């Protein structure tokens, strides 16, 4: 008897101690925050927009979904994120739930201010509900609120559109790539690599973006799109790398999986289109009289997806020539992006980390002034391209036209 009582007592008493999950909350009492938009007001407070999902309008269930708008945006202000979040509860009927937050949009204004940007991050990293794998974006030429309030066609949830779009473009184009809050904090803390963030733009008429009528058209008046990479140095945004130059950055970071390269052939512009399907980048360093020299080796394999000129693709020599041209094009892209980064004196490629790993002793001396050192760093780029196949056609029809 005594033993039984003891067992029950031990279990009973351990219940309040082991209560990490003691927070029962019904689904219907939660407001899923899908995205956060952070702006800075004239009052110097954070203006936070909470994009909440309206579940009944998202899933097409029996109860006739899709009658209203899929999202609702509430705004609140505060000196800190927590204050803003708690202030929001005065407006929202349900408990704000952050476990499913997929996107955080920060306005350019906030990002350019070091303290403003850094003050945000701890709240995200500390909250147990919030995931640090959340995507973080910078709003370009529009406020974060505008990005968060925009309705999207095709994907009912704007957040799904943003996260999926970034993943797709990372895989298919290679100008933007998925960056989480974790990556950002890592980059800010570490000295060998500066973080970059995706820029996001609202394209079209801003006043139409948040209206239901935007969803009833095949071509929307306003839509969202990724554009450029934001360079963060010393915890603040310093400049943008535009889309054209962005791919070079991703080549070096080994983030390019597939993309497209347009080549000139025998004087004809836009004659060939090469699509790499596998790409690998190795960054290594050698020390020349105690000075680090960076070697970048890009290897890619691809196929010819377009040949808009009379070209004999059956000839191995032609293929060899195309490979050479591809190598040249990729090399140029990489060099351009390195030049751009050197201009900004900001090592976004993580060359510092490579040096650190190769020779910690030398790195110790260089660490303090690395970004300035980086501006004059010798970087060698070597590209090896292979064309594996040319699609389901051998010679293009252009070869026959000329006969």
């Amino acid at each position, binding site marked *: 008897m*005594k033993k039984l009582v003891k067992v029950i007592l031990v279990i009973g008493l351990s219940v309040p101690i082991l209560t990490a999950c003691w927070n029962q909350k019904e689904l219907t009492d939660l407001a899923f925050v899908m995205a956060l938009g952070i702006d800075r007001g004239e009052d110097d407070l954070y203006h936070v927009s909470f994009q909440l999902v309206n579940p*009944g309008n998202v899933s097409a269930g029996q109860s006739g979904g899709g009658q209203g708008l899929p999202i609702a945006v509430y705004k609140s202000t505060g000196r800190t994120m927590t204050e803003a979040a708690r202030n929001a509860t005065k407006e929202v009927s349900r408990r704000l739930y952050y476990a499913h937050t997929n996107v955080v949009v920060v306005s350019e204004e906030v990002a350019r201010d070091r303290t403003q940007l850094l003050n945000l991050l701890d709240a995200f990293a500390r909250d147990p509900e919030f995931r640090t794998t959340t995507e973080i974006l910078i709003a370009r030429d529009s406020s974060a609120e505008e990005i968060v309030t925009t309705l999207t066609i095709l994907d009912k949830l704007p957040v799904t559109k943003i996260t999926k779009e970034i993943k797709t473009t990372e895989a298919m184009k290679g100008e933007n790539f998925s960056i989480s809050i974790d990556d950002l904090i890592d980059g800010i803390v570490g000295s060998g690599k500066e973080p970059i963030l995706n820029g996001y733009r609202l394209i079209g008429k801003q006043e139409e973006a948040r209206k239901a009528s935007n969803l009833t058209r095949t071509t929307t008046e306003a839509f969202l799109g990724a554009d450029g990479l934001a360079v963060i140095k010393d915890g603040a945004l310093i400049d943008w790398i535009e889309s054209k130059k962005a791919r070079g950055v991703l080549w070096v970071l080994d983030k390019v999986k597939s993309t497209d390269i347009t080549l000139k052939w025998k004087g004809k512009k836009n004659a060939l289109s090469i699509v790499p399907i596998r790409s690998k980048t190795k960054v290594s360093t050698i020390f020349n009289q105690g000075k680090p020299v960076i070697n970048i080796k890009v290897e890619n394999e691809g196929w010819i997806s377009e040949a808009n000129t009379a070209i004999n693709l059956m000839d191995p020599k032609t293929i060899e020539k195309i490979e050479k041209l591809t190598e040249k094009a990729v090399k140029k892209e990489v060099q351009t992006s390195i030049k751009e980064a050197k201009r900004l004196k900001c090592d976004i490629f993580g060359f510092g980390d490579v040096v650190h790993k190769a020779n910690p002793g030398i790195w110790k001396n260089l660490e303090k002034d690395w970004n300035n050192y980086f501006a004059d760093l010798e970087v060698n780029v070597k590209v090896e391209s292979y064309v594996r196949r040319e699609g389901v056609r051998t010679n293009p029809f252009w070869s026959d036209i000329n006969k």
Partner: protein
Amino acid sequence: MSILSKMLKNKQKKRQDDNYRQKQDPQKPEDLPILRDYQENISHLKEEVGNSSDVNVREFRIGAHKGALVYIDGLANMISVADYILETLMEAEVPDEPVDIFQFMLEKTMALGSVKTITNWNQVFDTLFSGDTVIFLQGFNKAISGETKGWEKRAISEPSTQLSIRGPKDSFTETLRTNTALIRRRIKSPNLRVDAMKIGTISQTDIAIMYIKGIANEKIVGEVKERLERINIDAIQGSGYIEQLIEDQSWTTFPTTYHSERPDVVTSHLLEGRIAIVVDGTPFTVTVPALFIQFFQAPDDYYSRFDISTGIRMLRILSFLIAVIGPSVYIAATTFHQEMIPTTMAIAIASQRENVPFPAFVEALIMEVTFEILREAGLRLPRAVGQAVSIVGALVIGQAAVQAGFVSPVMVIVVSITAIANFSTPVFAMAIAARLIRFVLMGLATMLGFYGIMLGLMFMTIHLCSLRSFGIPYMMPLAPFNIRNQQDAFVRFPIWAMKNRPMFISKGNMKRSGDHQKPGPPKQTENPSQNGEE
């Protein structure tokens, strides 16, 4: 826990005391001897049985001797009585010289397979109520009993509760002899022992304990007999009574005895060294000791190939888990751990639950209880009405409740999957245990989320490991882990690899098959053409 075991010990002691007293003071009619006067015997019989209309007395005369034969209408085969007793009696030519007429009758006039001499009234009633015929003769203080058993019995039919696709299609009936014969036909070995016993002070139910000598563990055989002898109850209505009176632990939802209506299952259990208890009047034969994993072994596992059986057995174990934790995981995930559900799914569930007026637990409870009611109703109703119930049930839980907004469609899915998963357990006794535990886990999940479920499952595991079935750990061969017995646990090894009988259960003859049983094409001989000529 100690209080329980103490209580049990006390009870056992008491039971033994009762048993002792019982043997001193039997409820049976007094063991009186048979009288010399047959008329007096008949009147004594009538006094004992009252005016029961099914007791038939037929007086006769053989030579100069008078006598009477008694049988129970309906239990005795009328043709046997008429043709092989009465006819031979009347046509018998009694020799003129003085003979022992009793001996004469025994030897010459009873054209029956089994004839016995009985001397007291207990034997008279025993034989009479088992369908035999008793003959009293004037001037003898003993009687003749002839076997004329022949009541109406059900033919052997297909099993109705344990179906199999490739297995034999016969099943036990309500007659003890038919059942023992069904087993005997499958094991033609003199080592198959059938020990008879009668249990039930009033019902006097016949029971046969079957085991294979040399394979079964003698200790367990002794234990089974001891436990059966200890039973002191007025009547045994079915093997369920026996199960509940001999099991090791009553305070558990898990069955520690196995029952089956399939002779092939019982046979294979006997071959593993288990002991079968065949009870008259029920088609369900009990086998002991029973282990946890045994309830997931279906007869088809052995009739189909090992890869397929292994996959299906895994599926069965998985569905048992679903049946146990299905609704509780739903409750825990939707009320505690929303972050664990993928975003789109979380939103989908949230949208369905938007207008449901109850918290998840109440919703789940309503649905589960409704389903249990429907199942119970469907079980008991006459077949004609059963269909109506299932239609109404499907409409009520499937459609109307969702449309009315009382429950969410997800809940209907969860309840349905749980219910179907529950049905895939081959033995009902184990399935019903899952049903009960499910509700406990649902409560724990409501209070503590996944932590509660884990707590419940841990307690369940500890409890399972503490169980014994006739001294054998219930979780064998998982806990205690035994590598040799894994051949028939989660993975069903190929038949040629299942060389040994399960340990502990079987003693002595452990080897099941010879070596090199793995089949394959014949090895190439040096001269293949010669091989062809042979």
